[in-house]
């Protein structure tokens, strides 16, 4: 579904990604972790072309992201993305947030879009909030709306960029529950997250990054039980000890 081949990126002389190679198959849930500044978010943003890269290639569902001839908007409409800071559109009601791209990008009618929106809000338990505005919801609720908004486009895969990092601790689980459910339904997912519990429960594979390189790319059992690199061992020791 997603193939990355020797993807490299630099800002001026600063190397952000170096030769990142990996694959995500249909139905897989990949957790990307690593220390801050290791390039996780950049890597995931390269997948839908939000971040350009200088060399290597990324193929999503048979389409090359880096090819200048690729219609990026069309590609992005098939790849759902959830952001750290939710990024709902503050001037629209919740239901309009879910409907707008369906009508403007997928050319669905307003009725179809709203119906789909209501179904998805039901699914994330927020049907009652449909007419409210993002600013009137809690962080956890906003993030669930953001997931529903991405799902409204019927994506072939979902990207999560630290979806729980900006949340109050007590709201983390409501978001992780939605993600877990999604994973169990067979959605292809690539998640940048520090939630190792989530990784242990639902990940098919774990990618560990450090200084712009993919250091480990292994099944979750192999990663958590005997990470090969020293850097990953240190990381796990720190993150699992509290």
């Amino acid at each position: 579904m997603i193939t990355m081949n020797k993807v490299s990126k630099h800002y001026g002389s600063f190397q952000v990604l170096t030769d990142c190679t990996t694959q995500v198959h249909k139905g897989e849930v990949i957790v990307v972790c690593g220390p801050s500044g290791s390039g996780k978010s950049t890597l995931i943003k390269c997948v839908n072309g939000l971040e350009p890269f200088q060399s290597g290639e990324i193929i999503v569902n048979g389409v090359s992201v880096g090819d200048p001839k690729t219609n990026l908007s069309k590609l992005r409409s098939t790849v759902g993305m959830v952001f750290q800071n939710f990024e709902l559109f503050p001037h629209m009601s919740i239901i309009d947030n879910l409907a707008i791209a369906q009508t403007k990008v997928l050319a669905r009618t307003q009725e179809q879009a709203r119906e789909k929106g209501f179904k998805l809000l039901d699914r994330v338990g927020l049907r009652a909030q449909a007419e409210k505005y993002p600013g009137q919801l809690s962080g956890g609720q906003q993030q669930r709306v953001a997931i529903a908004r991405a799902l409204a486009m019927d994506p072939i895969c979902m990207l999560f960029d630290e979806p729980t990092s900006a949340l109050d601790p007590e709201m983390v689980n409501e978001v992780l529950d939605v993600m877990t459910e999604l994973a169990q339904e067979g959605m292809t997912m690539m998640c940048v997250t520090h939630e190792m519990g989530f990784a242990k429960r639902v990940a098919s594979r774990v990618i560990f990054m450090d200084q712009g390189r993919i250091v480990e790319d292994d099944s979750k059992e192999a990663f958590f039980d005997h990470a090969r690199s020293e850097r990953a061992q240190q990381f796990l020791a720190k993150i699992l000890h509290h």
Partner: protein
Amino acid sequence: MGYNWNWGIFLQPTATGDGTYLGWMFYGFKVTIALSLSAWFIALVLGAVVGILRTVPNKWLSGFATAYVEVFRNIPLLVQLFLWYFVMPELLPENLGNAFKQSNPIVQQFLSSMVCLALFTSARVAEQVRSGINSLPPGQKNAGLAMGFTLSQTYRYVLLPMAVRLIVPPLTSEFLNIFKNSAVCSTIGLLELAAQGRQLVDYTAQPYESFIAVTLAYLLINVVVMFGMRWVEEQVRVPGYIGGK
């Protein structure tokens, strides 16, 4: 003080026999309103376009927009007015320049003033639009693009609706400014409000009454603008957002 107050002056017929002095004032008032509103409309459209261009990734477009803003923001308004009124007609193609110079002087003065105020103000509006767009969280643009919107759709549906709301207060002060700046146009002979005030002094030797009336008229305009813009602000307020309900 020995000054002879005479508020009745406004109702007296003018020395030139074209109505009353109040009529002169009212004429000037109408010119000021017509000039400022037409210039404001142009400034809003141009300013929005230039402000948006300043934020787009294309270097040529944003470079052009930056140059535009710097030119019209950094030349004194009075100098710009003289350039439009005295110099521009000479630079136009000959038949167009002649047509301009042979037109009604009032039309010449009004057009030059309108273009001058509009472009000067558009540079300032552009800066507000740019800062409005730039003050949005950078993730908003990404969120729009990630949904499959094109860049222009992202501006239209995501960035601009919020940016415009954020800049209503600074735009209010630009709107007030354009009425006040329009007084500069009296220097090329346009008989707007301030010019009528001065003309009244020349004809009646009642400067206090004249300029008190002018002051009150400007005050009236600005109070109306302020309340109007406050109403706009209420209408576009986003629930749950900063300053919202």
